[in-house]
């Protein structure tokens, strides 16, 4: 069965966050979405944004569907995967010592297992790259870092639990025939550069919200991958040459459109 999903139904897990909001904006006109989150989407949409200028999810009307799903509950995840052609897991919980394991690790297990049970081939998993954790193995002092490096989360709760969830997802891919694309992020920001931001610099691993959403569409539509589990840096190519997102361009055909030249150029 081909993993490529050019049309059809896609379930989103953890869609109430800004990455989910970006995904909804980019996918809603191309797929029928089952948008899920632990909270009612109406409640999410009525809340303040996660941070300044971060997107808030649009409430979609039928044929799309909004559904409350606790990703730590396998039966709910399984029901959400039924009838779907692809799945995207953008769920995350960062700082709670219990729920971080439930959402980031057990949730990843539940999604991967449910995908296998429902015959879903393509799963887009997501996770962070903590670029500066304060110990020598975090790659902060390296350059030309690419997508295939093994992440080193240290003891950071958020980084480690997502790392464990990523490995679980990889095992399902290698053992059960899933094709997992893992999108890796660090710093998000709006594509628009405000006049007062010009020349102020930016994080060397940065992605606009708009590009973040579009990457999911490219991920769903991309052809077969060279291996069952491929990691992708989803960021813009910057002249710092610290992080290289070349694989996303090569295998997905995706390339960031927001390149932020006015941020790193003297006004």
């Amino acid at each position, binding site marked *: 069965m081909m993993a490529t999903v050019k049309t059809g139904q896609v379930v989103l897990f953890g869609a109430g966050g800004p990455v989910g909001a970006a995904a909804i904006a980019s996918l809603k006109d191309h797929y029928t979405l089952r948008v899920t989150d632990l909270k009612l989407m109406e409640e999410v949409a009525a809340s303040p944004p996660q941070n300044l200028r971060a997107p808030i999810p649009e409430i979609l009307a039928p044929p799309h569907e909004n559904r409350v799903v606790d990703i730590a509950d396998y039966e709910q995840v399984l029901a959400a995967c039924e009838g779907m052609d692809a799945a995207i897991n953008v769920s995350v919980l960062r700082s709670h*010592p219990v729920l971080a394991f439930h959402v980031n690790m057990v949730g990843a297990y539940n999604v991967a297992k449910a995908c296998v049970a429902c015959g879903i081939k393509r799963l887009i998993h997501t996770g962070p790259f903590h670029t500066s954790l304060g110990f020598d193995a975090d790659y902060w002092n390296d350059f030309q870092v690419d997508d295939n490096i093994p992440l080193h989360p240290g003891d950071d709760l958020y980084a480690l639990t997502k790392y464990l969830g990523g490995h679980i997802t990889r*095992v399902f891919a290698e053992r059960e025939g899933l094709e997992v694309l893992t999108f890796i992020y660090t710093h998000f920001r709006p594509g628009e550069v405000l006049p007062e931001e010009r020349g102020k610099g930016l994080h060397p691993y940065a992605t606009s919200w708009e590009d973040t959403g579009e990457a999911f569409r490219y991920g769903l539509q991309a052809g077969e991958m060279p291996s069952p589990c491929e990691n992708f840096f989803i960021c813009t190519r910057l002249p710092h040459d610290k992080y290289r997102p070349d694989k996303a361009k090569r295998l997905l055909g995706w390339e960031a459109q927001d390149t932020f030249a006015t941020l790193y150029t003297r006004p």
Partner: protein
Amino acid sequence: MRVTVIGADRPLGAALASGLGDGFAVAAIGVGEVGDVDDYQQVDLLEREALDAALAGAEAIVHAVAFDPEAENEQALLDFVARSTYVALTAAVAAGVGRAVLISRLDLVRDYPQEYVVGPQWNAIPRADAGSLVPMLAELTGREIARMGQLEVRCLRLGELGGETMVDDAVAAVRNALVAKREGHHWSLEHVASSGRCARGA
């Protein structure tokens, strides 16, 4: 050496706590109400404050939870093993414990073809089920925390107790791991088998 054996409510942990013997002052703790070892103490292994108290004064820990855990379902199993490992090792770092011995399973390399001479430098290949994944999750947690350079973690992969790995060999391996001199890395991995394909010289 003052050693806290974590997971002493289960057969392996109890055997290790009982067997370390001369030279080791052992505190045996676990999540279960009872443990088959003297002076066993029930501790909530998922609560950081409980571990902070339990590890006060310890010079080393033996974390045996990932070897033979029990839980009510797959999700609880994943959570218990990964989180208890994280809590124990981060508490050990905070307490200034210098060394941790982490017990894992040879099952992680079981599915390589029989004709392969498999050793600790072969990648773990667990199956896609919770029982098979949990030793890998414990290893990954231990390895990444060790990488920070504040705690030496020596991981021992054991086979079925009393079969592929005899109890005496498991105890001897743990004893050695507790006192061995560190050589460079803060993470190391060793296979401990008395017989079978992973035994020395097999």
